[in-house]
Structures are given as C-alpha cells and as structure tokens.
C-alpha cells in the first residue's frame, strides 16, 4: 500500500528541480537525422512566430550557408555580431557569449549545438556556452544532428564509416525542455542535395557524398526517430510519475562504471551511459589508482583522465580513488553510494594464465550481492595511436641516464676481476652466485634498465671467462645452459622486484613529502593573521608542491574582486575577467578546465564554508602536471585550506571590529548616562527646592511665591532642553535600541495628549482614528515622544484657541500614516523640509522658546522605525505633519476562551 504514496524526498527533489528549472532559460532543440533536413529553417520559422508574439528574439549565430529560403527568414531579425578571435594568424569568427549575456534577450538562436569553439574562446564547446546562457535565464533555440549525440557517436560511426569529433553530451539533449524532430524522407533529402540546397563543406566532398547514401540516410532517420521516441517515452514515464497515474517508482539501483588503464575505456563509458539512460538511473564512473598504476606513462594517465571527463560530460558522477586493492575500493564505493550494478570492461581471455581471475570475477567473488555487467572493449585496432603508449611506458621504465648503464658495465667488469683469482679456490656454482649478487646490487643501485643490462652482461662474462672452454662463448657442457637461464631469470626477476620496490618507496616518499608540505602549510596558515601572509604561504607551497607560481585574488563583501594580494616573489599576470567568472560561477576556469582552457593560468575558486572568499590563480610551469589525479586532490586540499584560512582571518577582523564597536558603544552609553545624571540631578534639586520654598514656614509672600514658581518653570525648561540634547545625541550615536512591541495607536495618542496636557490647555485637541486600525509595531516611548513633540510644536506655533487634530489612515505601500494637523498660520513657505534639520526653527529670533531639536528628534525616531516624516501646509491653512509607520504582520489575539456570557447578550 505504501508504494502508492510518493516518496517525500522525491517530491522535495522534484520541487527543487522545478524551482531551478523556473529560474533557468528554456532550451528547445531542433533535432534532425542529418544535415539538410531543414533544422535551421524550422528554427527560424519558430523564432519568427515568437517575434510576432512580441518576444525579444536575437540571433546569436546562424549559418545560412547561402541558402535563399533561410536567408529570407533571417531578414528583419536582430543579429548579434560575432566575436573575432585570432587563431594561428587568422581571424576566426565565433559566437560572442559576453555580448549575448550583456544584451540579455528573452530568446536567442544558436545554430549547431555540437560546434567546437576556436581555442581562446571561453568554453571549448558551444553547448557549454548555451548552458551558461540558460543558467542566466535566457531561452535558447538550437539545432543538433543525430550523429552528434555522444552516445550514438559509435553507432553512427559504425553505420556511415564517418566519425564526427564534435559531439553533444546526451544529458544536454535529454535536459532540453523541448525537442522538435525535423524530419525529411531520404528521397526528398537526396533531391534537395541534387538541387544544391544542402550545404556541404568543400574540403571533404567525397567523404560526404559517401555519407549521403540512401541506406545511410534511412539508418540515420531511424536513429533520430528512435531517439526522439525514447525521449517521448521518458516524458510519458515522467508525466505518469508526476501525476501519480500508477506507482512506477524507480528503485535507485544505480550503475558504477569502472575505468581501468586498459583499452577501450571510452567505449565502456559510452555503453554505461546508454545503459544508465535506459534504466533511467544515475550512474558513477570511478578510476582506482593502485600503487602499480602510478607507474603508468603520462599519456596513459591522460587517457584515463580523458575517459573520466567523458563520463562526467555524459552525466556521471566521477571519482578517482586511491588505494592498494582496486576490487576492495570499488566494492566499498559501490556500497557507500548504494550502487547495485557494476560495469566493467571484459578482460582478454588469458589461456596461458588459467589461474588468473578477471576483475569482474574478483568483484563477483567478494561481493556476491552486486550485479556485474561485463562489456566488450573496443575490438580491433581502430586507432593506431592507441598502441603506442604501452611501448612507451616499457621504454620509459627501462630508461636511465647513460652513466648508470656505464656503471653497471663497470660493475660487471669488477665482478669478473674479483672472480678471476677466486676461480681457482671456489666451485663454479659459487662464482655464478657472485655474478647474481652483482645483478642484485646493480638493480638496487641503478634501477631496472641497468640491472637488465647487467644481467645479460654477467651471463655473458660468466660464460666467456669461467665456463670451459674459457675465453670463448662456446659451451662444452650443456648443463651450463641451465645455469645461464636460471642466472638470467633470477637476475631479471630480482631486478624487476627491486626496481618495483624502489619505485613504490619513491612514490611513498613523494606522497609523504606532499603530506608533510601540506601539513607544514596548514600549520603556517593556522598562524597567519593577514591575507598577505596567506598569499605568501600559498605562493611558497605552490612553488615547492607544484612548481607553479600562485596568486590570491580576494573578493570583498559585495562580491567584487580586487587586485591580487602582493607577495615578495611577484605574482603571475592575472586575467581578472576569468577570475571573476570562476568566482561568480564557483567553478574552476583556465588551463585544464572546460572554461577558457587556452589561458596559461588555472583559476580555482576558494570555497569556504560561509562563502567563496576569492580565487587562487596558479601558473604552472608544466600545465599537464596539474592534471594528475593526486595533484588535483592536493590542489583541492590546498584551495580548501587557503579558503578556510582566509575565512578565519576575515572573522578575526569581524570579531575585532565588533569588539571595538561594542567597546565604543559601551563608552558612549556610560558617558551619556553620566552626563544625563550629572545634569539632571541639580535640575531635579532645583525644581524640588523651588517647590519646597513654598512649603517653608512662614508661608512666603505673593512675590516670593511668584519667584519660586518662575525658578521652577525655568528649571523644568532647562530640563526639557537637556533631555532633547541628550536624546538627539543618543539617537545620532545609534545608541537607541528600539523596544518594538505591538501597540494600539490610540493608547499612545492618549498618553501623549496627557503628557502635553499642561501645554495644550489653550488648544482644542481632537482625535480621529479609524476603528479598524491594526496593531502597529513600534517603540511606544519613542512614538509618544514624536507625538508629544508634534503637539508641542503645534501648541507653540498656533495662537491660543486653535484646534489640533490627531488622525491616522491607511497610507501608501501598506504603511499607516499618522498626522497632527492644526489650523494655525501654517509653515513658512519653502521651509517644509528645513524645519526637520537640527537647530533649525520655523521662525528665526522669535519669542517662542526652543532650540529647534524637537522635529529633528521626530525624524530620527520615525526613520529608525523605517518610516518617513514630512510637513506641509493644508489647503485650509495650518500645518500638517504626517509620519508613516510600516504596517507589518500583527499577531493574532486569541479570544476563543473569552466569550460573552449568552444571557448578558440578550438583555
């Protein structure tokens, strides 16, 4: 029963997917079986329709190839100019992605999705350009031929005999929002071809003529139709899943493809991608680097890396693992990632080694619960180049400086010399032992090549000098042939073993060296307090660890990059444009990546837990040296360590400034309250003493009482001034913390009128508040202060007997407007804003008391609440002060437990 219900995780991921999709542009692909079926034409027609509907359409790149109909369609559409890129002395034209991003149309047309960009463009492939356009929210129309699909590449190559190198990964095709199949029967296509309506590049005309055979075209058409049908089928499944038509829940039994050093990894990857697509499961591709595999030649490793990259493009999650036992690592990885099917290449049958267990068998034996799928590797030497690397590697391993060879020859001669006199004393068998020892020593000292040479030389010397007939290579006793063979084999085996051991020791020591360097760097970084120190440490580490020059480009809080941090050794020249790209996209760019691989520098974003802190730019002496997996891992660790160090330094700064701020705030507050206390205490005493004068016995006379009252009034006025000044100082220093609570405006209006009652005795105050006024969130004390100041103002500047009205209403943008209006003489013209300035008064040198702080305080308080305050004259004369407060979301008042007793309601 539970199967019927959708998995909440799945629902969640679908919602997320939809969100991401909503923000992305939409990709529509016009898909055809071959060139000439009219994809571009169809695309342009669709675009014209969009234009008619008012969409902002721009042509990024469309090749009309001189076809009349197509050119006609191009007319009247806005066309982006192409970018000129110098390449080997020629200027080549390429799609201008920056121009397109800057123009930001609603829809852009980009022909030939599979096109490879000229070296020096931002991305090596056009589809990567399109991805970037999509992620910045631009819709894209594009065209693809069936032979350009990555996983169909082999198949189409097999049918037509022509391999294309420009491919589009299937995930791009499958990820497209819409695919329109542009279909043309082969006969019509051939007719068009005859009429010259199909564009063919000149250079390969014959090959292409070969391509356009009817049989090929039918096959291609079938492929295109099938691929489209597959897509539609997937959509149907997707639809059913979304609409919950039937419970077709996928078991997430994903696929794991293993890449080895052997041949045909690319084919395994492509097949695995196809299987994964058929099963509709995600898949992984891993390469396990065992100590033996570290001995592979550079070109072999490059090939493995290329396969991994291919897998990545085909939508796999890739990883390069490192460990002693490949089978063990693979099984662990599969278990960890819940991958139930393991795809491996089938090993060649080894009749001469019947005990040999294939990789697939080993997995099967150790993890019987996992499915193992064996795939055929590429059969036949389809590509000659593939054969070379192995030889190269063997030669590589035998290679050694000539001195070593000379030394091993010398070794041999020395052994012979030593053995000469001993020959009379010892048995011949022991002499042979002596020669063996020489081979072992040579291999320990000089490596495999010299050791092999020594083995052969020693056998020869032994034969020549000691085996009778002596001083001749002839052998009288056949027995000695056995001795030679054993000697040679033992010599070679020990040579290989010691060489292998030495190699592993070297690998281990270099790994240890790297670890030590990393450890030292992290130790240094942990002590760094400034970005400059971090830059210097990373510069040092990059130089020793990678032989590269490094620079750190820091980003500020607004996400802008600055000039690289200066270090004593100087920094490589950095392209800030690529830097910014790497930073904005949070992805690596520059040499060895998909983005601007032509750049001599590699840019790695420094991702720290909170945000990207900047970019690490590396200028390697040998770009390829950065591509090895262990180097990549080291580089990742390096970038991570630097990022964390930068973040730590950043937060040290933040903590320092916060401490300083807190300290100064504390100081300011204590100063203000000290001043306030010191000023108010004597004033309080003054008021009180003036009062108590009236209470003294005998009672003071009328005049004395009058003086006492005047003293009291002046002291109170002084107090008001001091309060205003201190409040202004507090507000300006930002020392006022709003105590926001949900308040009834009516209440604050009432209390402000009550507070000002003494001043308002000569005025009529009316309140006009709507009944349905919501609760407002504000600091009641401060807003009362605003209202009191406005009332005070109104009382001061209007003649006695004037009326003052306080009101409120719903204002603009969901704010509540609150006003204080009088019917006095109004504000002086043109002064409506000035009166809110400090020490500014409506009437200069007037008899009205005050320093002009009241309204400035009002403004400061209202603005602290996120509102505005303005003044103007009413049409009827008189001044009107209006301030707004944000409405917010008032909390509900639960009155369910408080119901009128029913009998009370009836009476």
């Amino acid at each position: 029963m539970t199967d019927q219900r959708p998995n909440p995780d799945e629902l969640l991921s679908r919602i997320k997917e939809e969100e991401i999709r909503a923000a992305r542009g939409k990709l529509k692909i016009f898909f055809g079986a071959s060139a000439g079926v009219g994809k571009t034409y169809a695309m342009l027609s669709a675009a014209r329709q969009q234009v008619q509907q008012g969409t902002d359409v721009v042509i990024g790149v469309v090749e009309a190839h001189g076809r009349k109909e197509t050119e006609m369609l191009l007319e009247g559409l806005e066309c982006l100019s192409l970018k000129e890129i110098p390449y080997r002395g020629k200027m080549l034209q390429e799609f201008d992605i920056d121009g397109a991003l800057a123009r930001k149309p609603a829809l852009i047309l980009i022909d030939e999705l599979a096109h490879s960009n000229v070296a020096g463009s931002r991305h090596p492939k056009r589809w990567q350009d399109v991805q970037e356009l999509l992620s910045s929210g631009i819709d894209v129309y594009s065209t693809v031929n069936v032979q350009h699909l990555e996983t169909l590449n082999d198949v189409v190559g097999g049918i037509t005999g022509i391999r294309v190198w420009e491919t589009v990964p299937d995930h791009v095709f499958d990820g497209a929002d819409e695919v329109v199949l542009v279909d043309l029967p082969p006969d019509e296509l051939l007719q068009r071809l005859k009429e010259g309506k199909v564009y063919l590049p000149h250079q390969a005309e014959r090959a292409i003529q070969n391509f356009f055979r009817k049989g090929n075209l039918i096959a291609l058409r079938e492929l295109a139709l099938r691929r489209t049908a597959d897509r539609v089928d997937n959509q149907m499944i997707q639809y059913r899943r979304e609409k919950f038509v039937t419970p077709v829940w996928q078991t997430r039994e994903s696929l794991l493809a293993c890449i080895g050093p052997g041949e045909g990894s690319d084919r395994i990857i492509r097949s695995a991608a196809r299987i994964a697509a058929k099963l509709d499961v995600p898949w992984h591709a891993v390469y396990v680097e065992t100590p033996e595999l570290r001995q592979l030649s550079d070109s072999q490793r490059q090939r493995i890396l290329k396969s991994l990259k291919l897998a990545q493009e085909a939508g796999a999650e890739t990883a390069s693992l490192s460990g002693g036992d490949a089978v063990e690592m693979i099984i662990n990885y599969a278990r960890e990632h819940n991958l139930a099917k393991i795809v491996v290449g089938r090993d060649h049958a080894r009749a001469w080694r019947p005990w040999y267990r294939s990789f697939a068998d080993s997995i099967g034996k150790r993890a019987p619960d996992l499915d193992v799928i064996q795939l055929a590797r590429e059969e036949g030497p389809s590509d000659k180049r593939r054969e070379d690397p192995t030889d190269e590697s063997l030669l590589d391993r035998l290679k050694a400086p000539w001195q070593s060879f000379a030394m091993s020859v010398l070794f041999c001669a020395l052994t012979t010399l030593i053995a000469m006199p001993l020959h009379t004393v010892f048995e011949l068998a022991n002499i042979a032992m002596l020669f063996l020892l020489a081979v072992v020593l040579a291999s320990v000292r000089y490596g495999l090549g010299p050791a092999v040479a020594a083995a052969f030389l020693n056998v020869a010397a032994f034969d020549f000098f000691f085996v009778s007939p002596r001083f001749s290579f002839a052998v009288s006793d056949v027995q000695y042939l056995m001795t030679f063979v054993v000697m040679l084999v033992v010599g070679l085996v020990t040579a290989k073993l010691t060489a292998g051991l030495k190699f592993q020791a070297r690998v281990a020591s270099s790994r240890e060296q790297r670890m030590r360097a990393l450890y030292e760097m992290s130790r240094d970084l942990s002590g760094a307090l400034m970005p400059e120190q971090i830059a210097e440490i990373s510069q040092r580490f990059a130089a020793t660890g990678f032989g590269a020059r490094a620079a750190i480009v820091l980003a500020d809080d607004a996400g802008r990059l600055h000039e690289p941090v200066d270090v004593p050794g100087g920094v490589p020249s950095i392209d800030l444009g690529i830097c910014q790209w790497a930073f904005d996209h949070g992805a690596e760019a520059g040499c060895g990546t998909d983005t601007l691989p032509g750049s001599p520098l590699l840019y790695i974003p420094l991702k720290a837990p909170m945000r990207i802190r900047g970019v690490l730019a590396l200028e390697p002496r040998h770009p390829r040296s950065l591509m090895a997996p262990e180097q990549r891992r080291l580089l990742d660790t390096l970038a991570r360590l630097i990022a964390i160090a930068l973040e730590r330094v950043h937060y040290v700064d933040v903590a320092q400034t916060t401490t300083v701020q807190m300290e100064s705030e504390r100081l300011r507050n204590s100063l203000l309250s000290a001043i306030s206390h010191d000023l108010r205490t004597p004033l309080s005493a003054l008021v009180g003493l003036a009062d108590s004068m009236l209470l003294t016995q005998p009672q003071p006379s009328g005049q004395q009482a009058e003086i006492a009252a005047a003293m009291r009034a002046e002291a109170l006025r002084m107090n008001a001034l001091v309060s205003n000044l201190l409040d202004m100082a507090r507000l300006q220093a930002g020392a006022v913390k709003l105590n926001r609570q949900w308040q009834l405006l009516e209440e604050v209006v009432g209390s402000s009128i009550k507070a000002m009652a003494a001043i308002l005795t000569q005025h009529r105050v009316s309140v006009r508040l709507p009944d349905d006024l919501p609760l407002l969130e504000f600091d009641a004390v401060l807003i009362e202060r605003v209202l009191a100041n406005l009332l005070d103002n109104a009382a001061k500047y209007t003649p006695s007997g004037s009326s003052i009205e306080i009101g409120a209403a719903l204002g603009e943008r969901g704010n509540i407007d609150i006003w204080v209006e009088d019917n006095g003489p109004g504000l002086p013209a043109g002064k409506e804003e000035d009166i809110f300035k400090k020490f500014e008064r409506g009437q200069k040198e007037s008899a009205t008391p005050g320093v002009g702080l009241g309204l400035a305080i009002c403004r400061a308080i209202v603005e602290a609440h996120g509102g505005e305050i303005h003044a103007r004259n009413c049409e009827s004369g008189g001044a009107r002060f209006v301030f707004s407060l944000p409405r917010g979301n008032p909390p509900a008042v639960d009155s369910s437990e408080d119901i009128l007793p029913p009998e009370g309601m009836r009476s």
Partner: protein
Amino acid sequence: MSEPLPVIIVIEDEPTIRRFVKLSLESEGCQVFEADCIRRGLIEAGTRKPDMVVLDLGLPDGNGVDFIRDLRTWSDIPVIVLSARTSEADKVEALDAGADDYLVKPFGAAELLARVRAQLRRRAHVHGAAQSVFEFGKIRVDFGRRIVEREGMPLHLTPIEFRLLVYLTSNADSVLTHRQLLKNVWGPSHAEDSHYVRVYMGHLRKKIEDDPSQPKHILTETGVGYRFVI
C-alpha cells in the same frame, strides 16, 4: 492625635533632593526618616515600622531594585520609586519587583504628595473591610453579582474584561506592569503576549471611558504599564 502620624522612610543619596522630599512630606504631616544608602535604608525600614518607603533607584551601594526585593520578603508597605533614568526597563524592573508607583526626576512637590496620599489611602482601604460594590465615575461594579453598570445600564463585559477590571480596581492608584496584568488576569502561560493586554485594555476603555482616546480612569504609563485612577 486620634491617628498616629504616617511614618515614611526616604532613601536617597542626594542630600538636596532628600531634604526637599523630607520638607514636602513633613508639610503633609508625615514623620520622615532619612537614609542615604540601601544598607541604612534596610535598617530604618526594619526598625521604624514605616507606612511607606520613598526610594531612589541609583544608590551608591547598589540598585534600589535589590532593596525592594529584600523588603518584599517581609513587608507589603507601599514603595514609591524615584527614577532619574529615562530607561523604562528600570522602572518596569522595579515595579515587577514589587514597587507600587514611580516618579521621574525632576518632579514637583505636588506630584510627590499626590502619589504619597494615594498610596496611603490605598493602604487604608486594604486594611479596611472588603467592599462588594465599587463605584467610580459613571461606573458601578458589583463584584459579588459580577454585574457592571454604567449610569444604571448593564454593561456587557467578557470574562477576561471583567477579571481585568476587577484587578485594576483592586489595585487602584498603583502602576501595574504588562507582566503583572498578564500573570494575574490571563495566567502565567501568557507572560510574553503583552499585546493581549493592550487589545483588551482598548476594549475595556471603549466600554467604560467617555472618550477612549483621552481616558480618565485607565491611564497608560507608556512603556511601563497602566494605572487605574478613580
């Protein structure tokens, strides 16, 4: 001398203010004892059997709030707080600790005496017999029958409004903080919902005040709470 003179202790560190307060209170016919710090104040309060304490919050040997807490463990005499500070939080703290009223410096003799009189009167009320009917303005509250009338017409109050009114009237002239009102009318679980108090206070004012925006009985002490006056 039918009635003994009320005894008041003034705890204030400023001699001039202390003098003025003493002068004013004595003119009202009170017996005043002075103290200039908390320690001294506690001794006076313990030995003089005072009827009231007038207390400054900022004292050299500590916070006046501590004095109130200490005093409230053994006495319920009225406490009026003198506060030189603008911060409402201090007043609320003092009131929550058990103070009955407060005065903000500078204050005049008339204000001080009015508050002192009100508190002394309330104390006399509390010690008198409990009333079953309470009248103020145009309102008549019959606690026993749970009836409220305005100019003879019955007034319909919800249970909470009634509880609120009863609590206000029984603490007339004292400042009640939002927290105190919430705790006593709504119960301890609502201690943080101070907007409840405001909303219900608004309802109650509409029912018993002539002009709810300029109330005569339920006065707002902005940022602190409410005061009910007859």
